[in-house]
């Protein structure tokens, strides 16, 4: 049997993006021995790609803002399916978490009077996104990274966790391998925090990096946790569509926040047609009013009394609008629509959107200060994830915690832009604290059986030992076809059923994949394991989507186009049954307290 090394810690954090780093820092601050494991080098996690900003009701730009309005916007954006307690804690704690980042060295863009500057974003009533140009995620991760390396955390880089281990029903550690040379490592820990991000690599056109292989979702599912809201997959309305090599790469919503205009091939500013009737009054009535809003923004006015342009509708809505325009034959030459910021002064565009300017110039030979961009929807985020307790971030498996994109509940049926970075720091901190408290109360390290470790090794080695079997990259391509055709932006029963049937065949194929070569830095071998995780996520998405017979937020059914009031009171929950197959049940939403219901009812929220 192969050798492995063993490390002991109080808290093991899996994933070193914003949530994982923040959790590790928090747990270490309680004096515990903390391990932070990441699949990449430290500081490269997907968080670096977040561009637009961190949503927090700091009210530095618009004094009318406050946590109640942020809470309300988040619930409206999530179509009321959010865990109300998470949305409340998030809105209340985001400002102090941003302040904390600043104290640790983050250098945000400033207002004229020297405070943190905030910008407008889709679905947010007031200017609320703290930002650094369009590279806010990098600022967040670098700040946490530099704080983290001086916090006494043990960092294990380029290390993949393949299995969580339990002692009876509680968490006891995790098993994994180092990418560098394939050597194995057993982590014994009292508590584990999953902060592994999303599932983007189940889709072909995605803004997500290779790391997004549903690891946390699958690890938790295998360990007995349940996944909620998996039908809600966010397609970001604006990804690059051309040239083909860059298809899917994100074009930040900040382009629209700074006044970017969407037009179809007829030159029509189409977003007005797609505004939901109930929210029409929140947006500018016509081009003239939208223009005044942009002029106020350009002049650096802190507060504008004009309503925002229709392009700043929520992401689900803008993505569907673009999809429908293209489908109706009004798309751009490469199958997207036009996003125009070139009417603004070139210097300003370069200052406020520097990485967009470079991205288009370098990758597409397009100068966005001169001509419009071509954009279209790209898979961006999954709202669904591990069900956790709002206050402690603990899953239903004792000792297993989760934060960030791999957790579920916070964003309901659709996430607002800017709410993910704030989610990371608010619930990263809470998960770190929750795990630390749990670990401190647990006397000794739980036991791990040799048999379980041996199983974990066998599972990893199987694809290496096969003399024949399908190429994992080709199997992944088949998965792309299934998710793209059957589980994508618009869904219907026939497609979903077909997709699930094809997934059954694909799962069998995944059991036979072969990763030729040795154990040293072998991406083909790594993908063999990742595919298994992605298949769990894809199946969960398909099953959940099939079970929700309505359209709500990011989940659009062609056969059930209306939102069904009755279905707004239940989550879809996915878990592994005793027979090893995927089970689904509907669970009621927790009852919201009266004072929060009041906030949702009011049109204007008064802040103390």
């Amino acid at each position, binding site marked *: 049997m192969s050798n492995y090394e063993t490390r002991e810690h109080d808290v093991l954090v899996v994933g070193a993006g914003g949530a994982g780093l923040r959790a590790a820092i928090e747990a270490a601050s309680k004096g515990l021995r903390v391990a932070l494991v990441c699949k*990449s080098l430290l500081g490269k996690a997907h968080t670096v790609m977040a561009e637009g900003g961190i949503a927090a009701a700091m009210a530095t730009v618009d004094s009318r803002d406050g946590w109640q309005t942020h809470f309300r916007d988040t619930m409206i954006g999530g179509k009321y399916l959010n865990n109300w307690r998470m949305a409340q804690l998030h809105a209340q704690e985001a400002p102090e978490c941003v302040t904390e980042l600043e104290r640790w060295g983050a*250098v945000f863009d400033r207002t004229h009077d020297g405070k943190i500057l905030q910008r407008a974003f889709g679905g947010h009533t007031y200017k609320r996104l703290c930002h650094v140009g369009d590279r806010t995620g990098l600022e967040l991760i670098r700040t946490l990274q530099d704080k983290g390396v001086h916090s006494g955390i043990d960092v294990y880089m380029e290390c993949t966790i393949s299995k969580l281990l339990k002692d009876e029903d509680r968490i006891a550690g995790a098993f994994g391998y180092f990418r560098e040379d394939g050597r194995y490592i057993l982590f014994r820990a009292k508590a584990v925090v999953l902060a592994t991000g999303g599932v983007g690599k189940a889709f072909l056109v995605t803004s997500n990096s290779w790391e997004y292989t549903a690891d946390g979702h699958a690890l938790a599912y295998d360990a007995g946790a349940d996944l909620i809201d998996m039908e809600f997959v966010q397609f970001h309305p604006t990804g690059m569509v051309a040239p083909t090599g860059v298809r899917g790469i994100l074009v930040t919503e900040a382009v629209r926040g700074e006044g970017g205009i969407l037009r179809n091939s007829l030159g029509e500013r189409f977003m007005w047609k797609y505004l939901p009737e109930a929210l029409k009054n929140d947006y500018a009535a016509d081009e003239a009013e939208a223009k005044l809003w942009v002029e106020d923004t350009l002049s650096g006015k802190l507060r504008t009394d004009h309503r925002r342009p229709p392009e700043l509708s929520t992401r689900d809505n803008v993505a569907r609008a673009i999809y429908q325009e293209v489908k109706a034959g009004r798309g751009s030459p490469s199958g997207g629509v036009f996003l125009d910021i070139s009417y603004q002064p070139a210097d300003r565009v370069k200052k406020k959107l520097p990485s967009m300017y470079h991205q288009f110039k370098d990758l597409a030979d397009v100068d966005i200060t001169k001509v419009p961009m071509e954009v279209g929807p790209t898979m961006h985020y999954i709202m669904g994830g591990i069900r956790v307790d709002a206050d402690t971030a603990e899953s239903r498996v004792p000792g297993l915690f989760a934060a960030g994109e791999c957790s579920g509940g916070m964003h309901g049926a659709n996430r607002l832009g800017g709410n993910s970075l704030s989610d990371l720091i608010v619930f990263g901190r809470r998960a770190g604290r929750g795990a630390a408290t749990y670990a401190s109360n647990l006397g000794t390290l739980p036991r791990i059986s040799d048999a379980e470790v041996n199983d974990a090794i066998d599972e990893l080695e199987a694809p290496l030992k096969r003399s024949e079997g399908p190429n994992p990259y080709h199997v992944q391509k088949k998965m792309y076809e299934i998710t793209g055709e059957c589980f994508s932006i618009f869904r219907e029963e026939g497609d979903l059923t077909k997709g699930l049937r094809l997934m059954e065949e694909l799962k069998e194929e995944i059991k036979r994949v072969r990763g030729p070569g040795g154990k040293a*830095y072998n991406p083909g071998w790594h993908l063999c394991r990742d595919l298994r995780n992605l298949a769990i996520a894809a199946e969960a998405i398909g099953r959940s989507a099939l079970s929700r017979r309505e359209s709500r937020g990011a989940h659009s059914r062609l056969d059930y186009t209306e939102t069904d009031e009755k279905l707004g009171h239940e989550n879809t929950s996915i878990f592994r049954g005793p027979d090893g197959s995927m089970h689904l049940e509907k669970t009621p939403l927790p009852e919201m307290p009266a004072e929060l219901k009041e906030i949702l009812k009011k049109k204007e929220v008064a802040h103390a």
Partner: protein
Amino acid sequence: MLEARMKVWRGDKNGGAFKEYKVPVETGMVVLDAMHYIQREIEPDLAVRWNCKAAKCGSCSAEVNGRPSLMCKTRMEGFAQQGQEIMVEPIQAFPIIKDLVTDVSWNYEVNKRIQPFTPKPDADWIIYQEDIERVQEFRKCIECFLCQDVCHVIRDSNRKDAFIGPRFMVRVASLEMHPLDTGDRLKFLKERGGAGYCNITKCCTEVCPEDIHITDNAIIPLKERIVDEYYDPIARFFKHVFVKK
């Protein structure tokens, strides 16, 4: 369809060689796409480090036809149209792990030695945009380590023991020039940091994918501060008399 002739270095710390691959070229394709094509269709165990594929994470550094580059930003068409061979090899300043992947852990050790951000305890945190423009330039760094790769002290002389390299000169500059920071890293820079080793050839600035003016805006001002602090008697006198520590 246009086809590129690629030579990719394959091997490990015990040695290796360039191996030839033929890769079809699509519009807008970058070198990283070609590496993915090889993994997908020819050799799944080709080791490449990458993450975002959008020039934001700094993982996919390599040398393409001798030029230190991010593979995700290096377009294929130019080379392919001219019938030019495309040579891809790992960055040279760091030990090889496998194929295009190198061991850059030394950089993470250096970072730990730098005194962290140390703000004034009684700061009001009112900071004006004009006072942080320079620091924001430094904080654009994506840690691709291409500047470390071309630094003569690190690459040619392999004096990692003596000089922290351009990346960490930039890091120190971002802290030293933060309007609210009270730390003092000049002694560290002069002694363990080895700022004196840099002879300002600006190679680092040339390869920076984020266009950070490493030499002019970070290294030279830091060198000047060291001179003022340690070698200029008049400046020292005034500093000690008039500046409250």
